[in-house]
């Protein structure tokens, strides 16, 4: 039994014998289920495990061992073989653990193929163009999402998914099911990225350009990339550099009121 979850144009078929867990996944990823049997998908075999494998608070560890990514945290232990797109995960069956594993697999695959990045950012589509609102916890990602006026379609309030556009110009922003405080998945749509804003809470609403080195530093600082790997690091740097060169990157100072969206056009 399986469920095929497609995010950012990459589908991963999750195979598991736990029927209740698969049902939970179908509900949670309802907007992201791939049609068909996912024959072309990457495959993740989930082996349910009861009590946590080690302390639930254990730090995340992502390392390459013999060509296989070992992804460990207190609540899961996964191995991912990048070449053939298959992996196995032992975890206490809950969607939060699986969510974390999926984020990491996507971040590794995007870096490996040089296709894109996951960023700590909310994102939304307005008039056919995507805008990112980037920052760590507490920066205002969910606030910006809640303040979005009618007609704005939310892609995520937590983790933004960027891929190089197929025509080679710039990046596309994809919706993700990775939710923050908003506690609901983004819309499963894609739009060309127009601007990337780093959030700063202030008493006024204003956009200030960022110098190129600062823009690159902030993009890298907010990139989800956990692997310690000398082959992938240059690719992530190249992706971030390419991203900064292809869209507006600026600081968005904002007071928490709806007028901030007057600047987002």
């Amino acid at each position, binding site marked *: 039994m399986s469920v095929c979850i497609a995010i950012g144009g990459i589908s991963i078929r999750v195979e598991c014998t736990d029927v209740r867990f698969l049902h939970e996944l179908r509900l949670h990823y309802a907007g992201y289920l791939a049609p068909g049997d996912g024959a072309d998908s990457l495959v993740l075999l989930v082996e349910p495990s009861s009590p946590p494998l080690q302390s639930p608070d254990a730090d995340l560890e992502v390392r390459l061992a013999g060509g296989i990514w070992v992804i460990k945290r207190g609540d899961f232990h996964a191995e991912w073989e990048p070449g053939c797109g298959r992996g196995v995960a032992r975890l206490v069956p809950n969607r939060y653990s699986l969510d974390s594993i999926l984020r990491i697999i996507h971040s590794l695959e995007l870096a490996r193929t040089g296709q894109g990045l996951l960023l700590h950012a909310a994102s939304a589509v307005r008039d056919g163009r995507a805008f990112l609102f980037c920052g760590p916890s507490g920066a205002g990602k969910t606030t910006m999402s809640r303040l979005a006026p009618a007609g704005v379609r939310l892609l995520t309030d937590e983790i933004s998914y960027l891929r190089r556009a197929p025509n080679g110009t710039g990046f596309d922003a994809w919706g993700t099911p990775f939710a923050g405080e908003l506690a609901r998945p983004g819309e499963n749509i894609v739009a060309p990225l127009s601007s990337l804003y780093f959030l700063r809470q202030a008493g006024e609403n204003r956009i200030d350009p960022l*110098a*190129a*080195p600062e823009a*690159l*530093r902030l993009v*890298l*600082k907010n990139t989800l*990339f956990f*692997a*310690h*790997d*000398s082959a992938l*690091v*240059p690719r*992530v*740097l190249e992706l971030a*550099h390419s991203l900064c060169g292809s869209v507006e990157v600026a600081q968005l100072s904002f007071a928490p009121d709806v007028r901030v969206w007057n600047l987002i056009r």
Partner: protein
Amino acid sequence: MMNVYPKRAPNAAFRVLGGEAIVMNPLDSSLFSLNETAAAIWRAADGCRSLAQIVDSEVCGQFDVDPETALREATEFAEALAVHDILILLPEAETEVLPWRP
């Protein structure tokens, strides 16, 4: 310290933008932002020139700073990057210049 020959770690990932540099440690993905002076030293760290030579030609010759201060600060900078393995401090000059591959 004056006679060490700094060399960029060959696997360090970096970009130079507007005179400044962003360096990523490939071992742990940690980030380093280098100001213009530090970036000038980074650019010149090819393993063939001593730190004192680099400071003399790339720092004192380009920036308004006294030589003694420049060398002291360059030494601190080099030692700090060396701790993170993104700059190698060689006891002798290498014969082959490290290629510049940003």
